[in-house]
């Protein structure tokens, strides 16, 4: 075989890679170094070893943030997938107005989550939210509570608003998955006497694995790094209770604890990486395994 000379054109991936190295990989590596220092963002940094990581585990606020972030993801990611799949199953047939319905359901997802948080704040503001007055109008004002006032109810509100906003996005991907399943499979299952549940379990679900994989992974990453919606809806309150890790990183960086904030980022990296790798592994298709 003649050995081909490697031409310049084979290096066309270099510009993209260079950009990525400078603005992503290099800072990532520097972050690992910075997490081992007590740098305050301006002055000299001195090496403190693993001190930041040790501090992290006795930092009450940080540990609450870990709990909040995990709880938010634990609520958001499964619910988003269930609701999205439910919507998709409901929409997966030909009917009049389908594309309009799909458009409406998807619409919240294109709005900035920060603005979305503000809109929901106008609706839910304690004692004077729009929903309160609407309920008052029909004489049911007592149903409205101070939902942003306590930890658990704020968490539920945050999860629900997030699910409400992004269910459409999850739905669209599930719909694409459902539409790629050949109709004949269901027909032959019907002839064999399979019930609706059985054909869902043995046809739909296995063939939906690629869509499930995309949705689960994006939702895990998205909900564990949630930022905007918490900023505008609760601002991390009451107190620091609903503050998430990404907000904490930002606040620590502004609070001149730059070294520490990068250490928190590294811990957050692991918190995201583990569930992502597990779900990638669980949704591996047979071909990939062999």
């Amino acid at each position, binding site marked *: 075989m003649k050995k081909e000379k*490697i031409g310049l*054109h*084979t*290096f*066309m*991936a*270099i*510009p*993209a*890679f260079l*950009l*990525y190295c400078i*603005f*992503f*990989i290099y*800072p*990532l590596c520097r*972050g690992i170094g*910075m997490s081992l220092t007590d740098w305050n963002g301006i002055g000299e940094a001195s090496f403190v070893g693993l001190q930041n990581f040790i501090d992290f585990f006795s930092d009450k606020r940080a540990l609450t943030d870990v709990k909040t972030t995990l709880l938010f993801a634990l609520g958001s990611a499964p619910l988003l997938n269930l609701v999205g799949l439910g919507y998709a199953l*409901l929409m997966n047939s030909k*009917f009049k107005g389908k*594309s309009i*319905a799909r458009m*409406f*359901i*998807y*619409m*919240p997802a*294109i709005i*900035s*989550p*920060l*603005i*979305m948080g*503000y*809109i929901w*704040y*106008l609706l839910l503001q304690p004692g004077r939210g*729009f929903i309160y*007055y*609407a309920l*008052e*109008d029909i004489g049911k004002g007592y149903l409205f509570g101070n939902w942003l006032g306590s930890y658990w109810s704020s968490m539920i509100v945050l999860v629900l608003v997030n699910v409400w906003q992004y269910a*459409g*996005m999850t739905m*669209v991907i599930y719909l*694409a998955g459902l539409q790629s399943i050949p109709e004949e499979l269901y027909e032959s299952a019907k002839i064999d006497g399979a019930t609706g549940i059985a054909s869902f379990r043995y046809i739909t679900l296995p063939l939906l694995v*690629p869509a499930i994989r*995309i949705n689960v992974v994006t939702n895990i990453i998205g909900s564990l790094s949630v930022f*905007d919606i918490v*900023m*505008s809806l609760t601002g991390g309150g009451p107190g620091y209770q609903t503050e998430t890790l*990404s907000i904490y*990183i*930002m606040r620590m*960086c502004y609070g001149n604890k*730059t070294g520490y904030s*990068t250490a928190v980022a590294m811990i*957050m990296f692991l918190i*995201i990486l583990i569930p992502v790798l597990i779900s990638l592994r669980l949704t591996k298709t047979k071909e990939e395994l062999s």
Partner: protein
Amino acid sequence: MRKLRNSIRYLLISLICLMCLIPFIVLIILSLNTPQHSLEDGSVFIPDFYFANFYEGWIKSNIGNAMINSGFITLFALILIVILGAMAGYSISRFHYKHNRIIFAILLSCMMIPGIINTVPLYSLMIKLKAINTLWGMAIVCATLAIPQAVFVFTGFIKGIPIEIEEAAIIDGCSRFKVFWEIIFPLLKPSISAIIILNGFGIWNNYSQAVFFLQNSKKHNVPQALSVYFQQFAGAKWNLMAATALIAIVPVMIAFLLLQRKLMEGLTAGAIKG
């Protein structure tokens, strides 16, 4: 039986649609109230049709400037993503050399890392590069975060283009670069629109990076301008908040309505390839 099931389906879908629309409807109602309007008397559902809110919100909130900024950032970032991503995708899918395989593997494995992880060290790099509080700096940050996915989608797409198309051109004496620009790039339209749609809204709406890299109020993008404007009200002046939020949503809505059909196709294409 079938009829009943269909009507239940219709009912459920209508309810879901309504649920998705309610906040927008409320926003419109609130934005049309006078400042003196108290929600306690009269029906909350009938606004005063007071349009001066939009004028006041527009003048006082810096939102117009923020839209220009967001627009510039989005445009510049998308151009970078599409051109660099397509070039990389072409090289990776056509020339199976070691360096291309390594680049692809690195990009793929970094695809799962969210931007917030490296934001703080990136911040100090941006200061050194004097790219802080610049629109081009922010655009580069946004483009970088989208590169792995773009390369992934373009690589998959170009693999599906028959190589014979190029071979004829090469025999005619075309250089590889010319082949890429004049033959391959125009064929990429479906995946280019997928990439633009997948990233465009997110870049326009970006807040978690903008908080770090665009602190100067002249360089604020839309979410930032809005959040700064809202903070001064402490939850009061709903009419102005709602009107300004509505102004901020309008460009995104128009883009969405125009691109709606493409968007669904794009998401689907991106999803299946991804």
